């Protein structure tokens, strides 16, 4: 029977066309995924070069200054011995999101969240200023990535592959012949479906592996196994559905309509309703309100500044003496600023988190309801494998905040003790731990 089935499938021109299309889609999607990842890698390279050039130049200057062959520059921002000048202003380090090995499989949220952030004493710019500059029309349309091919297109191919297994027999008049044979029609159908299922799963795995090796992605890891097993499960779901609908014993056209209806339901309608439900239960924060409130709260902080300094000096009387000692404008300013920056960060974080939490609740709620549709689960899994899901970008933004503290502490220590930076120090600046 298997031999016959195989012959049937291979000889069917429709199947050949479908296979061909599937291959073209997978290959194209892999390529466009790769070009997106390449663009990201290029951008990372650029920011890293920029940072390295800045610090190498200053380090070289510092060598001359230490030798005594050059004098420290007059402008304080250009002085490589000054910790604040090197840790702030034009200085600072770029934190980046390194693409996952299988990042090509899903665009996810990569086109709306920035993949790098400049961190210095002044703060981070993870949430702003480094927009991705993609056409909003293209962002709204979404890309042709592997996630799209598997989540949206694959079920349609499965439908085309299995909508008429039973009905075609009836329409050709061979059903009676079949019924007259000593076999259970359900087992017969199940066998047929199973065969097609294994055929398609093997085909996809082969095509996917081939495409990924053509574009040179690294797929020798457990994520790839997870991806393959999700494909296996997702495909199983759609074949199972096709099996049930075949059992209803309707005409081929009715089968297509029913299957297409379920496709719309799982792929478009349930996700839309979950989205609507989540965003009406937990509305996204209003950013227009945020903008004006932020202004108000910044003003409020300004009013508090004197009191904060007062309190700080009361708690740390030794700092107060230093304050009086400060002679130049630069130190007077930074003595205060270091104290205030820390407080301001705390103050603003408390304000921001109110807005962040609102979106967080919405996301959590939507994730809870994702079980209503295998399409959502599959899409989420692929985003997670590709590390392009919202959560990944948000934790990147959080890690920049943590790192910013480490960075500031390093330079503040030097500054506080009136230390001049040495060439050795330049090699010891805090570095991003590889995530």
């Amino acid at each position, binding site marked *: 029977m298997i031999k016959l089935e195989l012959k049937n499938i291979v000889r069917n021109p429709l199947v050949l066309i479908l296979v061909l299309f599937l291959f073209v889609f997978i290959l194209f999607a892999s390529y466009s995924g790769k070009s997106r990842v390449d663009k990201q890698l290029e951008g990372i390279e650029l920011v890293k070069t920029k940072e390295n050039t800045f610090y190498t130049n200053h380090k070289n200057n510092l060598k001359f200054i230490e030798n005594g062959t050059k004098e420290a520059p007059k402008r304080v921002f250009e002085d490589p011995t000054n910790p604040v000048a090197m840790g702030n202003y034009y200085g600072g380090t770029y934190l980046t999101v390194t693409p996952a090995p299988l990042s090509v499989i899903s665009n996810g949220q990569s086109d*709306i969240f920035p993949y790098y952030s400049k961190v210095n004493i002044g703060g981070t710019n993870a949430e702003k200023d480094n927009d991705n500059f993609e056409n909003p029309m293209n962002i709204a349309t979404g890309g042709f990535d592997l996630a799209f091919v598997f989540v949206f297109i694959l079920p349609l191919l499965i439908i085309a592959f299995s909508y008429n297994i039973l009905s075609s027999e009836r329409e050709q008049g061979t059903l009676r012949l079949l019924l007259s044979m000593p076999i259970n029609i359900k087992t017969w159908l199940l066998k047929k479906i199973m065969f097609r299922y294994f055929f398609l799963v093997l085909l996809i795995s082969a095509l996917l592996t081939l495409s990924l090796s053509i574009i040179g992605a690294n797929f020798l890891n457990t994520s790839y196994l997870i991806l393959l097993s999700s494909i296996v499960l997702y495909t199983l779901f759609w074949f199972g559905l096709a099996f049930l609908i075949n059992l209803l014993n309707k005409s081929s056209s009715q089968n297509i309509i029913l299957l297409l209806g379920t496709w719309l339901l799982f792929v478009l309608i349930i996700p*839309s309703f979950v989205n609507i439900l989540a965003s009406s239960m937990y509305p996204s924060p209003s950013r227009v309100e945020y903008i004006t409130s932020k202004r108000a709260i910044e003003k409020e902080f300004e009013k508090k500044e004197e009191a904060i300094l007062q309190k700080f000096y009361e708690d740390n009387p030794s700092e107060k003496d230093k304050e009086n000692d400060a002679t130049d404008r630069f130190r007077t300013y930074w003595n205060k600023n270091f104290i205030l920056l820390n407080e301001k960060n705390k103050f603003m974080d408390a304000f921001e988190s109110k807005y962040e939490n609102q979106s967080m609740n919405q996301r959590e709620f*939507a994730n809870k309801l994702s079980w209503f549709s295998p399409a*959502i689960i599959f899409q989420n899994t692929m985003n997670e494998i590709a590390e392009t899901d919202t959560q990944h970008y948000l934790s990147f933004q959080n890690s920049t905040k943590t790192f910013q503290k480490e960075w500031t502490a390093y330079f503040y220590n030097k500054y506080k003790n009136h230390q001049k930076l040495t060439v050795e120090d330049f090699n010891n600046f805090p570095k991003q731990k590889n995530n």
Partner: protein
Amino acid sequence: MILLIAKKEVRELLRNNRFRLISITLLILLVFSMFISWNTHKKVLQEHQTAQNLAREQWENQGKKSAHSAAHYGTFAFKPIPTLSLIDNGLNKYLGVSIFLEAHRQNSASYKQITDQNDLARFADLSPAFVFIFLMPLLIILLGFNSFTTEKESGTLQLILSQGASKRKLVLGKTIGIWLALLLLLIPVFILGFCFIVFSDYGNGDLLRYGFILISLLLYYGIFIHLSIATSVWAKSSNFSLIILLSFWMISALLMPKLTADISKKTHRTPSPIVYQKNIKEELADGINGHDLSSKKAIAFKDSLLTKHNVSSIDKLPVNFYQLLMQAGEKHETTVYKNAMTQLNNIYIEQLKIHQLNAFISPTILMRMLSMQFANTDLQSHYNFTYQAEEYRGALISSLNNGPKGVVNTDFFKKNIKFEYQPITLSQTIEKNASNLMYLIIWWLLSGLLVILSVQKNKLK
């Protein structure tokens, strides 16, 4: 005769359980999505008005300071929400909602709504436009795919033809029948949409815009009706006809838009943010900086001013040198930012042309562009906003740079100009998207031609 056929067709369709079920589902989706977007629209509108007033209040009460430090303090322009975003929210979610206006630099619009939403907001977004543009064609396909094939399969076609009905009349009658069944569903929805617009704070031309969206939609549906009829006449079995039509829908609504997005990204690459900012920085360094008196450019500017007025030092100038220098710097900075943004916008426009080109394969792309253009939720209206915000920024900063010397207070700030947004007029919209409308008509005509051809090819026997 034609009417008779049409009547019979409608009656059959209405009796059809499948049609009833699908129409009711679509109707629920449409009404539901309209209510949801009306609700959001009202809320967002309220927020924007409050924010705009609050921002002005903050500007006026920013305290005593010099006029130029007020320019650094800056203010915000909020993007107004067009009324027709009720029907088609277009790209709004993916575009920033406000622009920070400050001295020396042009900021782009920030805070996109999408970054605050759950991931599903990108997966599928149920809006009236989505149902109208993506789902309605499916209904049309289901209405028309077997209009002739069943007659062929059951042999009734020959019966009808032998009774003296001409093929042409039969096709025309069936087409009208499908139209009538479709309009029966659509007209109440169209009226509902009309009511929502009337009851919200609609502006000049909004109703006409809505009318244009409806006309384009009807043309768009016409294309699908034509294709369904033609395929049904041409195909031997209902099954085959259905598969062909669904494949077309899949290509038009699903594959082509996404393919186009990826292709346009490759043919017209956008710069990476770091390169973009580097270029701006280099160009800025190339001109006058209003805060740097010692730079070569500033000295040259001073000398030229001195020679022009024939005096020996800036104290003797009849004009305020520092204000002029600041304004000269501002002018240079404005040009640099404007050039950079124009370049980026040009890339976007080129990418949109690729979308337009691919509309020859997919009428859905065309319809989507048309509907967001008429709804004022496309890129062009966003540029209109950024452009006007930039003009306003220029005027405001220059009035501050030329303002009184020394400290100014609330009285002065109250007199500063306010940001008044002028939305794109209907004639501007039509001028810009006349080509899209024309392509849609071409699609309609060509698909109509296909129907005529299929009849003449004598496939009906």
